[in-house]
């Protein structure tokens, strides 16, 4: 089943006009604040009535303004995860988890509560009330509550934005599991390139109410013209597989045949993962460098050089591991005569790959 969204809505300052499909898996609706992504998710949830639009989940029509159809939120078969967990304070964790299940049709495909509780690691919290939970625990319960409502569609509205870095790192793996285990599409709103790189099956990038990019995480983040938030967020995503963990704390990965050394990753040997290589951590050399500390040196070909508005430029490099983006100064680009087709080497500092940029 997949979600199909087409909306037009007049907002103060700009007009929202978007159209996209969210296939099974996790679709990140990506954009800066004020780009209209919250309006999109509210319209899909039925909390806002757009001027014009059509939203379908599989063959279930949620909204069709042309036919005057506007289902209320409770008829849309949703599981919503909000920025603040929005747990019901007067109910225990167990009652919160089972709340949506009570309203789900008896015929709906139901998740087993025991399995969900185990997946989220919240078994010891069941008899507590939300006021006694930490921020991360609340958000895990909120994920479980959405999942147990037997939804046709899961909506997540910046679910990590209110958490500190440590809590984000705690919750991200649960969304990875949700993405891999959920049979229904997940629409996930975020302004964080890290979350896109970690979670997205599909990315829909919004700017001032328009869809500016749409594709897989690797396609969208690998586009040298794409600036997630700012130019500092530029970083391509590589798919890889764990080969071995070494005794000195490094992990050896196989990215489409190319070897990469990274700080120890949590995945077991043989498991697949995705790694985001930040553009500012990639250096370009014209000859194979010797006697340097960086461990990853990949032969590369320049595909494209996109000068920025400031002193920098983004260079797209094709390597065996996949497309890598490098941020260099325009001065260096000129000195090295970087141009499409030029052979060079991409140097990636091993310790520069942060744990939050490695996901399953």
């Amino acid at each position, binding site marked *: 089943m997949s979600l199909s969204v087409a909306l037009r809505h007049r907002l103060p300052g700009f007009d929202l006009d978007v159209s996209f499909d969210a296939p099974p898996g996790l679709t990140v609706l990506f954009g800066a604040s004020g780009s209209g992504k919250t309006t999109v998710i509210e319209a899909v*949830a*039925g*909390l806002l009535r757009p001027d014009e639009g059509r939203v379908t989940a599989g063959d279930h029509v949620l909204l069709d303004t042309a036919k005057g159809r506007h289902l*209320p*939120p*409770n008829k*849309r*078969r*949703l*599981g*919503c995860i*909000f920025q*603040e967990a*929005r747990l*019901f*304070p*007067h109910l225990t964790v167990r009652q919160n988890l089972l*709340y*949506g299940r*009570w*309203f*789900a049709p008896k015929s709906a495909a139901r998740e087993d509560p025991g399995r969900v509780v185990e997946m989220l690691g919240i078994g010891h919290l069941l008899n507590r*009330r*939300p*006021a*006694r939970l930490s921020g991360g625990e609340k958000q895990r319960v909120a994920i479980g*509550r*959405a999942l147990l*409502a037997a939804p046709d569609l899961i*909506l997540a509205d910046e679910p990590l934005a209110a958490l500190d870095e440590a809590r984000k790192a705690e919750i991200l793996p649960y969304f990875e599991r949700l993405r891999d285990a959920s049979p229904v599409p997940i629409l996930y709103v975020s302004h964080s390139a890290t979350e896109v790189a970690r979670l997205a099956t599909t990315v829909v990038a919004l700017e001032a109410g328009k869809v500016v990019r749409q594709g897989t995480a690797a396609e969208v983040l690998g586009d040298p013209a794409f600036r997630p938030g700012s130019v500092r967020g530029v970083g391509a995503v590589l798919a890889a597989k764990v080969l071995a963990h070494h005794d000195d704390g490094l992990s050896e990965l196989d990215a489409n045949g190319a070897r990469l050394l990274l700080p120890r990753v949590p995945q077991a040997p043989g498991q697949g993962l995705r790694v985001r290589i930040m553009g500012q951590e990639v250096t370009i050399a014209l000859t194979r460098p010797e006697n340097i500390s960086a461990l990853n040196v990949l032969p590369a070909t320049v595909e494209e050089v996109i000068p920025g508005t400031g002193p920098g430029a983004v260079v797209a490099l094709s390597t065996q591991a996949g497309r890598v983006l490098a941020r260099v100064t325009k001065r260096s680009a000129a000195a090295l005569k970087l141009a499409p087709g030029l052979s060079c080497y991409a140097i990636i500092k091993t310790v520069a790959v942060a744990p939050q940029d490695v996901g399953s």
Partner: protein
Amino acid sequence: MNSWLGPQEWQAVALSLKVAFWATCAALPPGIFMAHVLARWQFPGKQLLNGLVHLPLILPPVVTGYLLLMTFGTKGPLGAVLQQMGIVVAFRWSGAALAAGIMAFPLLVRAIRLSIEAVDPKLEQAAATLGASRLWVFATVTLPLILPGILAGAVVSFAKAMGEFGATITFVSNIPGQTQTLPLAVYAFLQVPGGEAAALRLVLISVAVAMGALVLSEVLARRIARKVAGA
């Protein structure tokens, strides 16, 4: 007990409790509904409705009593219909309860409305996205969270109903055993020579009932608030 209170005094106390109890019970369901309408619904004429609900608070009670008499008296439009059905409220205890309920209604609505406005609408939205219809959202989320407010409103209403004077005496008169509630009895005792002692006893009872109700509501409200806050 009866040796301390004369039969007429005892009657007045019992009647007052009965009138205030039923007035509060009858006002609660429409009061909760009206509070929800005023707190959460958007519609033209909302301010007019708000004014109408608060009317008994600002009108002189005698005027409210007279309006009730015109409406619910045996010759009044509603009173005539009710009489056909065999229900007479004018000059009966039920009429006293009606007057007390109407006078207490604005206070009840106000207390409940404030507590509904304190409930985060985002919680109600979350419940709706999980499949709960408007009615279920109200029953499973809003209602439990506003219980302290409902209780506080009910206690204030009860106290108001116990003390209602002007509208009651105008609408249902001052008939011992029928419509002579506690304040009306105090008034009646003060009109006859030597009635001061009886009046004083009733005043003491009023003070005791009012204080008791207040303490009880505080204790209950705190307990419920603790429970719904989940601490």
